[in-house]
């Protein structure tokens, strides 16, 4: 266990080596926030309320979504996401050095990822505070809601990691996962509620989506944050997240056992 903790620490330290780049990233991040703001402003031009959601709530939702993306590693605002990293390591053969460690490979990667997560969380604090002032995003109604959001966000992170891990393993079979990786990210972007909240989707589409884990990644924590999903309903949504984690975890272990045999190491 200690070993994984240390990996996590080193991974965090490694990120710190690049803290000099942060300022320029911040500029890019706030520019993207501004674009999102303008986009929703245009859509809300003639109404104060769409589907029971005020402009104010919508902006909070969308900017929190962008901040979340930076934290849980999926759109790589601050990060290279796992699947990309892995496919390049498989292609160059560098993966050999990772697999050579007497550790559980999935936990090894998780510890890596978790160290980066910690870094992302810290970096996101000033972004969040600035966003409160610039875009007037609001805080949750109560500490209880904030706590629920934090739990749900942690679950989102685990889900993202598991999906990312499985996509990564595709490179063991084909040495390439860019196609699958890009496709997955597109699907998640569209169907998780990260850009367009799911309540804007037609009923049938939301029905179909309830059979997939995507909504659990963005839609659930963000809806909890803005108060669209409340107390019991929130707990229910979080249990669904946990179930998805269980399913994906089992799937990823199975896929890992199969993929290990498939690895074709490249180079020297």
């Amino acid at each position: 266990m200690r070993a994984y903790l240390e990996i996590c620490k080193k991974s965090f330290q490694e990120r710190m080596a690049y803290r000099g780049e942060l300022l320029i990233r911040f500029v890019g991040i706030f520019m993207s926030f501004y674009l999102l703001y303008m986009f929703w402003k245009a859509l809300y031009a003639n109404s104060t309320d769409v589907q029971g959601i005020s402009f104010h709530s919508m902006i909070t939702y969308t900017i929190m979504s962008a901040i979340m993306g930076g934290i849980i590693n999926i759109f790589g605002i601050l990060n290279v996401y796992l699947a990309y990293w892995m496919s390049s390591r498989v292609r160059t053969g560098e993966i050999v050095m990772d697999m050579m460690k007497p550790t559980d490979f999935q936990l090894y990667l998780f510890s890596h990822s978790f160290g980066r997560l910690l870094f992302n969380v810290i970096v996101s604090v000033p972004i969040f505070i600035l966003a409160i002032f610039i875009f007037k995003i609001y805080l949750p109604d109560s500490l209880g809601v904030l706590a629920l959001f934090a739990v749900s966000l942690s679950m989102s992170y685990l889900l993202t990691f598991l999906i990312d891990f499985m996509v990564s393993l595709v490179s063991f079979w084909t040495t390439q996962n860019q196609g699958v990786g890009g496709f997955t990210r597109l699907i998640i972007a569209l169907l998780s509620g990260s850009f367009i909240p799911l309540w804007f989707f037609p009923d049938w589409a939301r029905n179909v989506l309830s059979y997939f884990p995507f909504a659990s990644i963005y839609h659930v924590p963000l809806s909890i944050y803005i108060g669209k999903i409340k107390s019991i309903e929130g707990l229910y949504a979080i249990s669904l997240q946990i179930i998805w984690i269980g399913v994906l975890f089992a799937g990823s272990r199975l896929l890992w056992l199969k993929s290990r045999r498939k690895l074709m190491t490249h180079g020297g």
Partner: protein
Amino acid sequence: MQVIKIEDLYKTFKTYKRKKGFVGSIQTLFTKEYITVNAVDGVSFGINEGEIIGYVGPNGAGKSTTIKMLTGILYPTSGVIEVCGLIPTKDRKRNLMHIGVVFGQRTQLWWDLPLIESFELLRHIYRVPEKIYRDNIALFAELLDIDEFINTPVRLLSLGQRMRGDIAASLLHNPDILYLDEPTIGLDVVVKERIRQFIKEINIERKTTVILTTHDLSDIEALCNRIMIIDHGKVIYDGSIDEIRRRFGTESTLLIEFKEPPDQLEVDGALEIQLEGIRASIKFDRKRFTASDLISEIAGKYPVLDLTIEDISLDGIIRDVYEEGKLHESVS
């Protein structure tokens, strides 16, 4: 005691044939044509505790593939591997706990962090007791001078420093077996010598079994008591260096300096003669003539000032063995 046992080991790689151009790449999607490469093609050997084995062969012979299977990263297509009684792919973690691996062209060190941080991490991963860890760091400082750059981020290290760091890293947990895949690639003579001394020392002190892959045969000469030559996935020689010299290295060269340049030089039993002014080099087969036969013959005919005998280099011998291997192949 045998620590490594390999029997009838095969590894076949399949690569899909890629056709050129856009249409070709579409076709690739629908056809399942592939090329198979027998990277390791029926290899068997045993290695005893404390041996230093030179595992050599031309590029693409299957050396790295063998090592990757020994570490349990690659699954054999068929055959048996046992390392200290464990099957590397089955007992992956346990096997990795007591081996050390260096791939000279890669690094296991954290690129952006000071060298010491990687060591600290490995200490926890391998659960190295505090005392052993400290003793080892001291030993590596003494023998490899790593203390000079232990606090430098790895990305700023020179190749030689990084390699010393990687070798130290692979030995922090006192492994029973050390796999070194081209650990001296691209290093200057001084660092090379350092590393050789170090490997020798570790081998003697700790009885560490070492499997060394290299294209620099002077590494092998300096370190190994046994050499295995592999080509096209097959072991074509397995034995001592002395033996290989005796069998293949029977060609010697006699270098002579005369008092005055002879008009022409005739020597019975010479394979090849080169004469340039007062200097001559004469190749001969030691199996058929002794050097003293040749010398007395020449000294009887010409006034000799100075002479030296050169044995064929190990490089030359190995080249002959590779070529002979190719010969067999084209016949069979």
